[in-house]
């Protein structure tokens, strides 16, 4: 009997070690696994490397994890937010390092990591500061930068529904980074609003096959980051 459900967000993140690399799904608040992030704050793991498109907003979710001084490095395309100074403050202080990666290169590096592609040549960022110090090569009169696949110890992602085998479907643009991240992490943990038995999802419409998912946590009514921020919430 395969059943990847775990009882709580706390149980799902319990074994995340200090120094882990963690991919965190979401683009802005869409797809941000707020409850898993809060459980990770409670759990206490520190010296983390976070791979995520953004750095969170307000003082909840990812921004709260940063604010708790658990993250020493972020690999990110857009670490700014209209309503959060958490990351900028840590960055200027020198506590949290930044590896800035173009958004598409970030997505492709994660996908490559999950797909066993060690490295690839991309036209993105050629001639810009983000290609400086990187290997480049000309093919057919066009220059390309060599970028490397990216893997992580853990991925924390958010779906709409999952079955007990770990097959996942998403909600609208909350899908964003979750499918490639699920492929690229040694342990993938997904929070979903609904879980079901095998057969509860149409095999034609599964977005992330269960082979990429290790733990499923039901969070029936996940918080929306924007609502928490609007309410002035701060975690913990």
């Amino acid at each position: 009997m395969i059943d990847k459900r775990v009882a709580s967000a706390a149980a799902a993140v319990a074994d995340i070690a200090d120094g882990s690399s963690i991919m965190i799904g979401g683009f802005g608040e869409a797809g941000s696994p707020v409850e898993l992030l809060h459980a990770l704050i409670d759990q206490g793991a520190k010296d983390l490397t976070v791979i995520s498109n953004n750095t969170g907003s307000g003082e909840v979710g990812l921004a709260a994890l940063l604010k708790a001084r658990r993250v020493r490095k972020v690999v990110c395309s857009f670490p700014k937010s209209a309503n959060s100074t958490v990351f900028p403050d840590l960055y200027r202080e020198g506590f949290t390092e930044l590896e800035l990666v173009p958004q598409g290169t970030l997505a492709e590096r994660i996908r490559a990591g999950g797909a066993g592609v060690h490295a690839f040549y991309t036209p993105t960022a050629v001639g810009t500061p983000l290609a400086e110090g990187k290997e480049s090569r000309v093919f057919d009169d066009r220059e390309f930068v060599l970028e490397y696949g990216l893997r992580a110890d853990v991925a924390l992602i958010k779906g709409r529904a999952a079955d007990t085998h770990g097959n996942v479907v998403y909600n609208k643009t909350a899908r964003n980074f979750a499918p490639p991240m699920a492929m690229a992490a040694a342990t993938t943990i997904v929070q979903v609003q609904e879980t079901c038995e095998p057969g509860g999802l149409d095999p034609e419409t599964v977005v992330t096959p269960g082979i990429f998912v290790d733990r499923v946590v039901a969070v029936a009514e996940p918080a929306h980051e924007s609502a928490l921020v609007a309410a002035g919430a701060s975690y913990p």
Partner: protein
Amino acid sequence: MSGTTQAAGWTREDMARRLAEDIPDGAYVNLGIGIPELVARFVPDDRTLIYHTENGLLGMGPSPDDGDGDPELINAGKRQVTALPGAAYFHHADSFAMIRGGHLDLSVLGALQVAASGDLANWSTGEPGAIPAVGGAMDLVAGVKNVFVITQHTTRDGKPKLVESCSYPLTGRGVVDRVYTDLAVVDITAEGFRLVELAPGLDLEFVQHRTGAPLLPPIAEQEATTS
């Protein structure tokens, strides 16, 4: 100078309308945040464009009515949007495969500077202490078939944004095809900036004066002069 009033030229809406005229029916288009977003309002009624938002949606529609939105249906500017009939959702790696793979017809972006070579700087002023943030701009300019820039012709303090060479960090090298400003429409050609159209009441000299590199006359005019 043939004109001296600072008020001369197109409004932002005029610029967006002028750019919209140049987008063919059926095009797949990615509009950047800010002025580029205005373009969608001015697309002629007889054309259907399909909007791509790089966070994972083709067939993006306008903002929802108040209360009808879903915080998980947003655009690249993180604002709530809608999905039109015929839309499709996909993940980020697939979305940027569309961008990098040359499947989008047009990317419309803002700019800090555009060079005569088509170099674009639009993500960082390189200020020490600023938080660098790039998002998808470098991917868009590297991959999309046509890159149009929409921007004021000069900075707030009157410095040209169309320059010989960008002083700000680049977003991409030789990537811009055409620039729509409040003063003119300008093509990037092998010879550099070439005027396509002037805002009403302006002449080439006026715009040249506000441009940081030579501005060639329109092809037709040049031909007329040399023939």
